[in-house]
């Protein structure tokens, strides 16, 4: 081979004889520019396509004594008139009629590249396929047989690796022989369905004699059938009005033809790939498929999801509970220390700091270790790619209970925080489906609710805490499903809708990403403890102390006693009832409130709670707390998204009824069973 350099000038080097015109076509990032630079070296000129802001690269080279003019067409995925680049590329081939079009394709993503080839072949210029990036394909375990591809396509195929200069001589030789007409050229074109083939022929017949130069009639007919806007406009102007009406009538009667034409191309690509490509199912893809056989199974997938959730809780408590115990002792000692230091100070100051600030916000902070472990476990599952599977499996379940498939994504966001879940329902077009999803979203246990569960469950249930927490999450989701079915019957006729997901490959965890996520979440939790929770703790402390005099006469006690009869139905005393109410501001406040009300010292809040309440009361409380009306921020989001106070009040009322009924049921049934025993 000899790609000889020529004097550095943009003008073609051969005078009197037209240089061979070669166009480089291909989608972006297939190595087209590398090939162009390799061939032209310094002999290139960069400008713009006439009237466009799209870059035009042109250059020249000589090979075996002949001069070549090389035009780098803009990178495009197809040749429909969707973008200026696509229009430029096809207009150039149609108007300039290059001697050879080199279609650069990426061997590693052959399907994607072949769509453009399918559109290049019907154009009036011979095509050579430069099968680039063969080395990358090989590394990925993809085996391509260029000879088979060549036979299937009916055009020359040259395997190469432009970055390594491999295959360049063969490509140039093929271009040379093609330009001289020495190579057989019988491209196998994509076909369309026989009924549409007839329509195509009718169109060709109707437009015959009116197609402007230099457009081939067959190509124009195909583009008309495809609904190409540029070609349609051109033919509308070129045809006499009555003939255009005829053509238009044919097109109107076959408005599904666009799909049929594209379908023919996909069939064609499928055939080419099946013939020439072997993909051994090894490595990451093979592993993902093997794991997904179980992880995305309609039944086993759910079992695996529930097991993983159980494992996360078990791990969280096993590792986190002892750490939380130590921290609780530390916070208790700190409160006692502050009380000791402030013996001479006014009682209200000592009370505010020791009971209000440390007892409230401090109590919430003690479960940071548990949360860190929980956050880490969830971040790990998210990072390795499991969470997408969880979404897929749950989406299947949504369909089983007659819910809109798209409802799942926003609901899934709810595990983090209910506010984005409510806002995320914007992806659902149907008003009814959206409303239903908004009503259900607060039943997804958010991080803050989980935080309350992870703190209280071990305090009450010791080793059985993972099981109880797991049960509470399952209960939430069960209630969500049941409410969904009931509301769906009343509000929303569940039309079957399709939902397609592309699941990412499983991969090894990136510890930095996981660490960063845990850090950010912990930080935002601490920030919340230092602001909202601290403020509510102080307010609760003030209400539990004011107006002074007997402790039993404080505003909070009065409120608690007023509400106690309702709480008693669920076994809750006034303190638990007040704690439940304070969770409206932020879920974690219920712990802060209990911290303030119990004036927890060194013995720790958890220990005091366990000593005060029976497991049955604790369970009833946890059930109500898990299903209770969401926090103020979520209610605000519901009002904003439904744009209706009626629906906002309905949502609050619905959750209030559900949670109180569930709590009552747990307590009353539990008490009845206990009596029987």
């Amino acid at each position, binding site marked *: 081979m000899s790609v000889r350099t020529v004097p550095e000038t943009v003008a073609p080097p051969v005078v009197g004889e037209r240089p061979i015109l070669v166009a480089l076509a291909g989608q972006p990032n297939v190595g087209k520019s590398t090939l162009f630079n390799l061939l032209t070296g310094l002999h290139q000129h960069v400008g713009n396509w006439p009237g466009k802001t799209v870059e035009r690269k042109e250059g020249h080279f000589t090979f075996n004594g002949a001069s070549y003019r090389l035009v780098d067409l803009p990178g495009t995925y197809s040749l429909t008139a969707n973008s200026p680049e696509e229009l430029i590329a096809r207009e150039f081939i149609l108007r300039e009629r290059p001697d050879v079009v080199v279609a650069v394709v990426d061997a590693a*993503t052959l*399907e*994607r590249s072949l*769509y453009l080839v399918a559109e290049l072949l019907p154009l009036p210029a011979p095509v050579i396929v430069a099968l680039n990036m063969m080395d990358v394909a090989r590394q990925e375990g993809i085996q391509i047989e260029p000879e088979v591809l060549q036979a299937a396509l009916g055009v020359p195929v040259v395997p190469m690796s432009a970055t390594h200069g491999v295959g360049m001589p063969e490509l140039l030789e093929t271009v040379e022989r093609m330009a001289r007409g020495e190579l057989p050229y019988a491209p196998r074109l994509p076909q369309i*369905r026989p009924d549409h083939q007839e329509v195509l022929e009718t169109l060709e017949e109707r437009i015959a004699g009116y197609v402007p130069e230099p457009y081939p009639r067959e190509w124009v007919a195909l583009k008309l059938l495809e609904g190409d806007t540029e070609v349609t406009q051109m033919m509308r102007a070129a045809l006499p009005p009555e003939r255009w009406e005829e053509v238009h009538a044919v097109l109107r009667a076959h408005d599904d033809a*666009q*799909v*049929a034409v*594209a*379908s*023919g191309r*996909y*069939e064609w*690509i*499928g055939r080419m*790939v*099946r013939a020439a490509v072997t*993909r051994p199912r090894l490595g990451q893809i093979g592993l993902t*498929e093997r794991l*997904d056989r179980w992880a*995305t199974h309609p039944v086993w997938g759910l079992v695996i999801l529930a097991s993983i959730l159980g494992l996360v809780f078990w791990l969280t408590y096993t590792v986190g509970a002892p750490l939380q115990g130590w921290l609780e002792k530390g916070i208790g000692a700190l409160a006692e220390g502050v009380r000791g230091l402030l013996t001479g100070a006014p009682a209200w100051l000592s009370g505010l700091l020791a009971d209000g600030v440390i007892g409230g916000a401090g109590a919430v902070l003690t479960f940071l270790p548990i949360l860190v472990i929980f*956050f880490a476990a969830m*971040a790990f599952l*998210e990072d390795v790619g499991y*969470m*997408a599977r969880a979404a*897929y499996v749950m*989406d299947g379940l949504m*369909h089983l209970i007659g819910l809109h*498939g798209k409802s799942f*994504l*926003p609901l899934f*966001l709810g595990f*983090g925080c209910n*506010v*984005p*879940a409510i*806002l*995320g329902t*914007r*992806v659902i*077009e149907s008003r009814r489906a959206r409303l239903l999803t908004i009503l259900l979203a607060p039943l997804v246990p958010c*991080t803050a609710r989980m935080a309350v569960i992870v703190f209280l469950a071990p305090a009450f249930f010791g080793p059985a805490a993972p099981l109880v927490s797991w049960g509470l999450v399952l209960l939430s989701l069960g209630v969500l499903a049941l409410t969904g079915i009931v509301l769906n019957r009343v509000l929303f006729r569940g039309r*079957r*809708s*399709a*939902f*397609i*997901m*592309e*699941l*990412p490959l499983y991969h090894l965890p990136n510890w930095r*990403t996981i660490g*960063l*996520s*845990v850090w*950010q*979440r912990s930080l*935002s939790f601490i920030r919340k403890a230092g602001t909202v929770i601290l403020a509510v703790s102080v307010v609760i402390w003030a209400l539990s102390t004011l107006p002074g005099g007997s402790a039993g006469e404080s505003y909070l006690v009065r409120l608690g006693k007023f509400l106690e009869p309702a709480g008693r139905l669920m076994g809750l005393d006034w303190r638990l009832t007040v704690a439940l109410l304070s969770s409206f501001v932020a879920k974690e406040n219920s712990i802060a409130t209990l911290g303030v009300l119990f004036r927890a010292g060194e013995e720790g809040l958890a220990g005091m709670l366990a000593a005060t309440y029976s497991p049955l009361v604790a369970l009833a409380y946890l059930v109500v707390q898990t299903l209770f009306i969401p926090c103020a921020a979520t209610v605000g*989001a519901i009002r904003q998204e439904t744009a209706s106070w009626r629906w906002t009040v309905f949502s609050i009322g619905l959750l209030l009824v559900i949670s109180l009924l569930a709590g009552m049921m747990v307590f009353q049934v539990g008490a009845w069973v206990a009596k029987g025993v």
Partner: protein
Amino acid sequence: MNGMLERLLEILRAGGTHRVSDLARALDTTPALVEMMLEDLSRAGYVKPVATCTEACASCPLADSCISTQPGKAWTLNPD
């Protein structure tokens, strides 16, 4: 017989949740080609890509710590 794209539309119109790899198996082709077809159907208005998080993320209190900035792509059948 209908072409591949028409068969894909038929499957989607029957409803349900599908993985790209399942669709590829059903059509005897590769996931990459199915993805291309979905993009094509999306351009033609038959399916719609689902904006997974974009809008919700703007106001999400957990956005800073969210790992799922690049979740797998998802589509849904256009109801019209």
